[in-house]
């Protein structure tokens, strides 16, 4: 299952998120395929500019939450009516209002824990993961736009990329090899 393979990335670094946004739009207008953008903070509109699909994490959150609701309600109903019904002064065993607080808490718990675990999985975040870092300044103050280059990339295409990077205001242009895994089915859905 190890689909890790080496990639050569040609990238430009920008000093401002709005310059990056314009650069992304220009590069796509020129028909260039962007590998990825690395930014120190979430840049609004960058996902649309890159043409990324919307994440489905929220849908998963709803499913996890609903699982919590159903788990809590069925479990408490089963405990109080089937497994160990106790007569409290003739009060009903299935007392739904009393189950609401725990049902709410479990809904929130399941949704949160489920979503965070899924988020860590699809983003490949785990203790000990060591990503290949193109430039350490991209988590501090620089904005990166990168293009993948392989043997099939012609020299004129590379020149095109370099020209676009220069024209859109990149302050530095560099190339680097990195190891990256391809996204499987689950990561593509979310």
């Amino acid at each position, binding site marked *: 299952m190890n689909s890790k393979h080496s990639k050569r990335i040609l990238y430009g670094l920008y000093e401002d998120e709005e310059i990056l946004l314009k650069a992304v739009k220009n590069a796509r207008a020129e028909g260039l395929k962007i590998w990825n953008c690395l930014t*120190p903070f979430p840049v609004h509109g960058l996902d649309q500019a890159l043409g*990324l699909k919307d994440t489905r994490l929220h849908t998963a959150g709803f499913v996890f939450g609903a699982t919590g609701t159903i788990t809590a309600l069925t479990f408490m109903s089963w405990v109080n009516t089937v497994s160990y019904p106790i007569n409290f002064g003739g009060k009903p065993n299935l007392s739904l209002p009393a189950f609401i*607080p*725990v049902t709410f*808490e*479990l809904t929130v718990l399941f949704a949160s824990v489920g979503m965070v675990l899924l988020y860590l999985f699809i983003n490949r975040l785990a203790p000990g993961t060591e990503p290949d870092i193109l430039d350490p300044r991209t988590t501090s103050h620089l904005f990166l736009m990168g293009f993948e280059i392989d043997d099939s990339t012609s020299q004129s295409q590379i020149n095109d990329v370099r020209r676009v990077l220069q024209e859109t205001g990149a302050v530095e242009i560099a190339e680097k090899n990195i190891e990256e895994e391809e996204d499987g089915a689950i990561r593509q859905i979310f």
Partner: protein
Amino acid sequence: MGHAFVSPIREPLITGRKTYKQITDDICGPVEGPPTKAWLAAISFTAVVALIGFATIGYSILYGIGTYGLDRTVGWGWDITNFVWWVGIGHAGTLISAILLLFRQKWRTGVNRSAEAMTIFAVMCAGMFPLIHMGRIWLMFFVFPYPNSRGPLWVNFNSPLLWDVFAISTYFTVSLLFWYVGLIPDLATVRDRVTGKWQKKLYGIFSFGWRGSAKEWQRFESLSLILAGLAAPLVLSVHTIVSFDFATSVIPGWHTTIFPPYFVAGAIFSGFAMVLTLMLVARKLLKLEDYITIAHIESMNKVIVLTGSIVGVAYITELFMSWYSGSPYEGYAFRNRVSGPYWWAYWTMMTCNVISPQFFWVQSLRRNVIFTFILSIFINIGMWFERFVIIVISLHRDMLPSAWSYYVPTWVEVTIFIGTLGFFMTCFLLFVKVAPVVAVAEVKSILKTSGDQYITKSSEQVEAEINQLAQSTGHYESLIKPQYDDE
């Protein structure tokens, strides 16, 4: 550099004309250097206090809670008072990061990280008290519904005390996840800056391999928003359920429907007070005045005056209802609060919680750092007394006058409480040293709308200019147009 129009009426939330690079340097700098002597001295002191507290907890487990001042009448004393007080303090962090995120309050970015950390440490302190109060702490897993050989005999799902187990543990888990998910990108920033081999290794492990790609951020924002949406009602539910511990009983003084909103307001009130107490010191020592500005302090003080007034109205409503209900027992419970043997506790509470926050109607006091600090201490004390008043005064004179007592804590209870303060401070000091205290990425994302260099004119200047032009031309509408400084 291009940026959208910023209303000049908005007060800047980041001062000092910061660039992205400077923000990283300012906030990550204190994390990377060696610890200062002041920090070492402070943490040594708080760690010793915490250790004495833990030793006393050990003593109370060994000899049982007979070592407390509790008696047949007062079954809940300092332990449950401390529990409710700490849980209340734990409300500010998630309120700031969740509810203020949904309300799009930009000032939360300066304080949310440290407030969330405080939430987690406060809930840890809170959780200790019910556990040691159980007496036989080694049977604490009995509170969870697990298949057992006693029937299986399940926990009582109709009991607010059990709801509390679920509320507190869920709140702790969700707060911890929310905090850590936000911390990952900032730890990655530190990872990419530190030079030491071990530092790089450790921050590499704890930053989980974050790169900051467009897709990661897209998912991050989606997750943050939904976690905020889930955590917002959760914050309100936790103290609501804590108040059910009292409100669903039949003790005069506890049996009131006003408790849930009153407890939630009180929790936010005390939480903000604790955030101010710690952050006013931290911003000074860590030189964060450009990120936690007077505008932040004023915003928090506004929340304090609101929630403090809600709490005040609740106290007065309780008094009114005790008379209006016509119930002699309710009436006595409150007369006893106001003028009984614990009158001093009641009036400490009233002074600290109802009278003192009213000073914050005055803007110059809301923006005064020293005054805010002193007042935040008053509120911390007042809110502790609120819980003491509700718990001890309601219990110490029950339905059987021969059992009436005057509860006084023993050294064990006092030491355990002081120990939790030491534990809380130790955790906070550790956090301040190892992680960025301000959410670096989030502050950068509001720079273009809240940095002082992007708000070029003060509101007074703009108003004066508009008035002047309006007088000379007679046209108002044409003057009030957004100005774009480039394009």
